[in-house]
């Protein structure tokens, strides 16, 4: 069912390309012109949807444009699509870069029909990943993308294409398999029969064990584990009850909207869409939900009252693949342990987080899982390199934000420093490797490794600026690297090689090309005024402010992220070094006589690059529209992750004491980035609740950069709301 009525926008976004594939298969291979036109038309649909989303989408932190349809009955698998502020920029990026890549493939001569059929299939897979809300569906799209990519590299690639294709395929497949394990495990653990009996039984077990152990009990691992489990249980009970009531509430609203006189079949359909079972007295139940839910929603109800309400509940949760639902149930994963014969019990959540980390890290790619990338990039045809760097790599970071951070928020906090360290290593290692390359494409490939490190760093920092910067970096790197790959393709089409040292003085014969290349390089380098700058500076500021974790037990937790940020900043210098050096060798110096007859870029090449140039300059000067797409969702994700510490149990609390203090100092909820007026101090806006869907429209030009440069002393981290009540009483008792 399409919940908002009207055109199923995201289905269109996802499946328009594959429809194009089907049409292509009916066209005879010799009509190359028709094939290309159809392919471009099919790829233009997602781009238009992307533009539409960019204009119309108002971020509220909730999933929008949702569609849901039962897909596989017995397994509770749904076809669920939707976008929020994290996926919206990716939708825009994927639509744009996908179309450009199709147009940039005009020069393909070998098996044109197969090529365009596959590239359209590839677009479907990638678009699907960015909008899927069901873990199963997400996985299917994730894998679906793999096959066409494999063939595109393996058939249309360079001399080493088969090796590159297989390497790409096996690396990614290894990652997806780990994801499959997580998928199965999360599905399996996502059910639960939680009654208050379970909690009291646990209480008894804890008491017994404590008696047995005597004084030392408080530190015993199994007691701590049981306590953590108890917290998880309580939280799960609460969440489950709320989720069920919320669903019923929503279903009731939807039925009201349909009108009380609506036919019963329609009512049933609505109920099914909300996952509510039909029973004869459903109307009464829905009415009850109407009354209860707002009161559960927090208006004047204390924890105790809530507990009383829950005491009657004996809730049975159905197993599910729904990412949103799983996100709500993350508490279920915390108390679980996986028993290894030799390693002893290991936290289920930690294990799953690591599995997912590897799955997504291979895609990003994070060192040491990056070795497929240079091969794939170098061997792939230009347009495929563009898709690889422009969209595919983003799927990794997107996966982190959507799946890992959603399902295992406590682990995101616990592993923040290691992830950030890997990110910083990526930045430096990628930059150093790039500097050593002679092949232009390989250089750009390694620069991608380096730039994706910024995404990792910003993401790990878990501050508003860090997360925003990370998402922006995904978008900006997507555009600037696409430009670079296209430009390398342009010169390769003329020279049939990419050796940096064999060029020289090209600026004289190819002025337009040189100009565009300069723009791309500067954007990638992070020159102020171009898009790369905004995201990098946001990542730096965000990670510098992060107070998660500590290196080697240093008492000041902020030191770890601060030192990492300083290291990361070296990466910017290295980036400038390798890019400028490359530029110098290719465009300046004496002109290589071989190249003096080269024609400058033709119309098609300019056509593919022009939109990216506009985007790079536009979002460099005025990034606010892009930031507006994400603010509320970033705030929500951040809240979700940081709040989870409250129930993470035992030892975590003290370590993050400082970070909490900061939040508590400011009980008011600050306005999200987008809505902050340029000069207003945070304290002056006590009344704008974070996450409120009706946040005031953006004030004109609140230029983030200016704020950043002014080094305002206030903590700009978006707060997590009222945190005083957050650590449950149980936890205090446990300590």
């Amino acid at each position, binding site marked *: 069912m399409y919940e908002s009525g009207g055109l199923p926008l995201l289905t269109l976004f996802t499946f328009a390309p594959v429809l194009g594939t089907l049409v292509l298969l009916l066209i005879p291979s010799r009509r190359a012109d028709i094939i290309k036109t159809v392919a471009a038309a099919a790829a233009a649909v997602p781009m238009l949807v992307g533009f539409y989303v960019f204009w119309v989408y108002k971020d509220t932190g909730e999933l929008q444009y949702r569609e849901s349809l039962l*897909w*596989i*009955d*017995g*397994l509770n698998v749904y076809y669920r699509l939707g976008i929020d502020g994290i996926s919206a920029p990716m939708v825009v990026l994927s639509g744009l870069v996908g179309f450009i890549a199709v147009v940039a493939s005009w020069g393909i001569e070998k098996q044109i029909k197969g090529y365009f059929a596959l590239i359209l299939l590839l677009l479907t897979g990638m678009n699907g990943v960015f909008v899927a809300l069901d873990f199963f569906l997400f*996985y*299917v799209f994730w*894998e*679906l993308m*793999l*096959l066409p990519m494999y*063939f595109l590299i*393996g*058939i249309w690639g360079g*001399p080493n*294409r*088969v090796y590159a*294709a*297989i390497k790409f*395929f*096996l690396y990614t*497949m*290894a990652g997806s*398999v780990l994801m*499959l*394990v997580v998928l*199965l*495990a999360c*599905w*399996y653990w996502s059910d639960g029969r939680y009654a208050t009996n379970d909690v009291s039984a646990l209480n008894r077990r804890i008491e017994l064990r404590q008696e047995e152990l005597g004084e030392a009990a408080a530190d015993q691992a199994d007691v701590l584990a049981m306590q953590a489990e108890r917290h998880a249980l309580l939280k799960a009970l609460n969440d489950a009850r709320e989720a069920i009531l919320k669903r019923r509430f929503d279903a009731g609203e939807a039925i009201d909207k349909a009108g009380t006189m609506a036919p019963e079949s329609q009512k049933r359909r609505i109920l099914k869409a909300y996952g509510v079972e039909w029973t004869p007295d459903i109307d009464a139940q829905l009415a009850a939900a109407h009354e209860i839910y707002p009161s559960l929603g927090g208006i004047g109800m204390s924890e105790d009252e809530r507990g009383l309400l829950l005491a009657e509940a004996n809730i049975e949760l159905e197993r599910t693949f729904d990412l949103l639902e799983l996100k709500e149930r993350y508490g279920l994963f915390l108390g679980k342990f996986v028993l290894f014969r030799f390693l002893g019990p290991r936290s289920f959540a930690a294990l799953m987080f690591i599995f997912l980390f590897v799955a997504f890290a291979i895609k990003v790619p994070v060192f040491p899982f990056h070795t497929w990338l240079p091969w794939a990039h170098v061997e792939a045809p230009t347009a495929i390199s563009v898709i690889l760097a422009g969209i595919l790599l983003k799927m990794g970071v997107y996966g982190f934000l959507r799946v890992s951070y959603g399902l295992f928020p406590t682990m995101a906090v616990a592993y923040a420093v290691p992830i950030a360290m890997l990110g910083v290593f990526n930045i430096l290692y990628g930059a150093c490797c790039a500097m050593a390359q002679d092949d232009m494409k390989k250089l750009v490939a390694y620069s991608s490794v380096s730039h994706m490190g910024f995404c990792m760093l910003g993401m790990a920092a878990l501050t508003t600026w860090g997360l925003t910067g990370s998402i922006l970096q995904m978008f900006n790197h997507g555009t600037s690297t696409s430009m670079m790959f296209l430009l390398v393709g342009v010169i390769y089409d003329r020279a049939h090689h990419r050796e940096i040292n064999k060029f020289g003085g090209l600026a004289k014969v190819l002025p337009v090309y040189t100009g565009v290349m300069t723009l791309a390089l500067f954007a990638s380098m992070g020159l102020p005024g171009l898009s790369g700058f905004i995201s990098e500076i946001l990542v730096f500021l965000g990670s510098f402010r992060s107070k998660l974790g500590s290196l080697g037990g240093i008492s000041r937790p902020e030191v770890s992220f601060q030192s990492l940020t300083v290291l990361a900043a070296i990466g910017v210098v290295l980036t400038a070094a390798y890019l400028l050096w490359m530029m110098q060798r290719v465009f300046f110096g004496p002109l290589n006589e071989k190249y003096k007859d080269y024609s400058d870029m033709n119309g098609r090449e300019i056509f593919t690059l022009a939109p990216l140039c506009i985007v790079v300059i536009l979002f460099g000067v005025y990034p606010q529209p892009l930031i507006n797409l994400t603010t509320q969702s970033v705030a929500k994700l951040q809240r979700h992750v940081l709040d989870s510490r409250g129930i993470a149990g035992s030892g975590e609390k003290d370590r993050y004491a400082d970070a909490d203090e900061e939040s508590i100092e400011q009980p008011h909820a600050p306005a999200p980035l987008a809505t902050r007026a340029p000069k207003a101090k945070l304290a002056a806006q006590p009344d704008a609740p974070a996450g409120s869907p009706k946040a005031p429209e953006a004030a004109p030009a609140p230029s983030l950069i200016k704020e950043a440069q002014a080094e305002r002393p206030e903590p700009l981290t978006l707060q997590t709301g009222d945190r005083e009540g957050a650590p449950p009483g149980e936890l205090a008792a446990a300590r």
Partner: protein
Amino acid sequence: MNWSQLNELLPIGVVLTTSLVVVFLSLVLAPKDRYVLSLVGVAGCILGLLALGKNYHALAAEYGQPPVFFNGLARVAEGAYNPVLLGGAFVVDGFGMSIMAVALLAGALALLCTTPHEDDSALSTGEYFGLILLAVAGMMLLAVAHDFLTLLISLEVMSVATYILAGSARRDVRSGESALKYLVLGAFSTAFLMFGIAFLYGATGSLAMQAPLVAGEHLPLVKAALALILVGVLFKVGAVPFHSWVPDVYEGAPTGITALMAVGVKAAAFAVVARLCFEAFNMVKELPKVINGHRFIEIVYPLREGWLSLFAVLAILTMALGNLLAMHQNNVKRMLAYSGIAHSGYLLLAFLVTPKAGGAEITQHLQAASFYLLAYGVMTLGAFGVLSLMREDGRPMEKMEDFTGLAKEHPALALCMAVFMLSLAGMPPFAGFFAKFLVFKSAVSSGYAWAAVLGILTSVASLYYYLRVVVRMYMAPAGAEGEPAPARCRYAWTLNLLIYGTGALTLLLGLLPQWLSRLY
């Protein structure tokens, strides 16, 4: 006896009749018209499928749905469908019907694989087609056999026919080798089975599937009997350590017969595994409790308790060994044989249940197993179909190299082959992925997560050798000897049609798996 019950066995009757018709028809047909025989045989298979579908619909209309799996312990409610036929000799339940359908599909492909211009005259005699149909009938009987006597007879009907068929390419030395190996080892395994059945009869005085229930003080003997029976059945399945015959026999037999063995025989044998696991392995233990003169009994499941881990270990070994050995094969047919072993391992995972599993759980596991069998059947049949089309100057082309450039020469066939390979490897969105997913899911939900994880890992390893075929077809490494020789295929419209059909079905089952599960 209620003769109307025989209606449920009509599909088997149709196939048996067709086999006789084919044999007699071969006497009157001129040798060059022998291809008509295979078409008649296929028509018989289609008729059988139609009869099966009609029966199913009739049952669905009358009783709702037939039970997925009939457990001999269950009491059939008044007015509900009673699947027990002929005094307990057969039981036609949903699971049995799905296995019958797989056997019929396999038979149709085996018939078509050897159609028109086969050079070996032995392959196109009437007996050859008759025997294929007889083997199919045996498989169908095995799928619904419900006591040990019918089980043995139908197993032998199936096996003897396949022994002969494996050796039917008389001019080919490998075919003879294949037949001999199959015969000797097969007879050996049947001996185990018969010993088991004899022990069981000696201990309990019954040949019914539930005979072990009345083991009484002969429990040790019954356990030994069940172990022997299991050996006999696992041999047919091709599970480690009873797998060694598989590669040689599969490689040597004519391709159509290999497909029949890889799909039909395996499906039928798994039907027996299911009947054994979920029905025969129940035993009653008397409890010392006596209340009001009633003695209390408890049903224990020896397989589920003591032997379950053994089953899991066998499954893992089968998967690992099959996949590892398949990697080094240069002959695609032999590679598919090893991959068949690996798939038996995955299938065995579906039979891991929690010790006290109830009806609903068993149903889920069986649904996973039968979906897997159907998906595996469809894609393996397709792959063997493509393989049997590939020949040059009457010489079958089965080597990896022979696939070089197939994508250029025959794009549609290559596409289908790629789909089969990727589906066998378990890539979404094809049927193979969903089948594996269901099996792993059922293993996880009965507490065998480690087995599932190992299974997933071996399935990644399997990707390597499936991809080798795809690489050969689509991206043959830039020639050391210049342009690679294009692969040659003969053309047979019926077989091509069947291959496209299975290709489409592979995709369809992956996209809409619930379409099938509605049948239950």
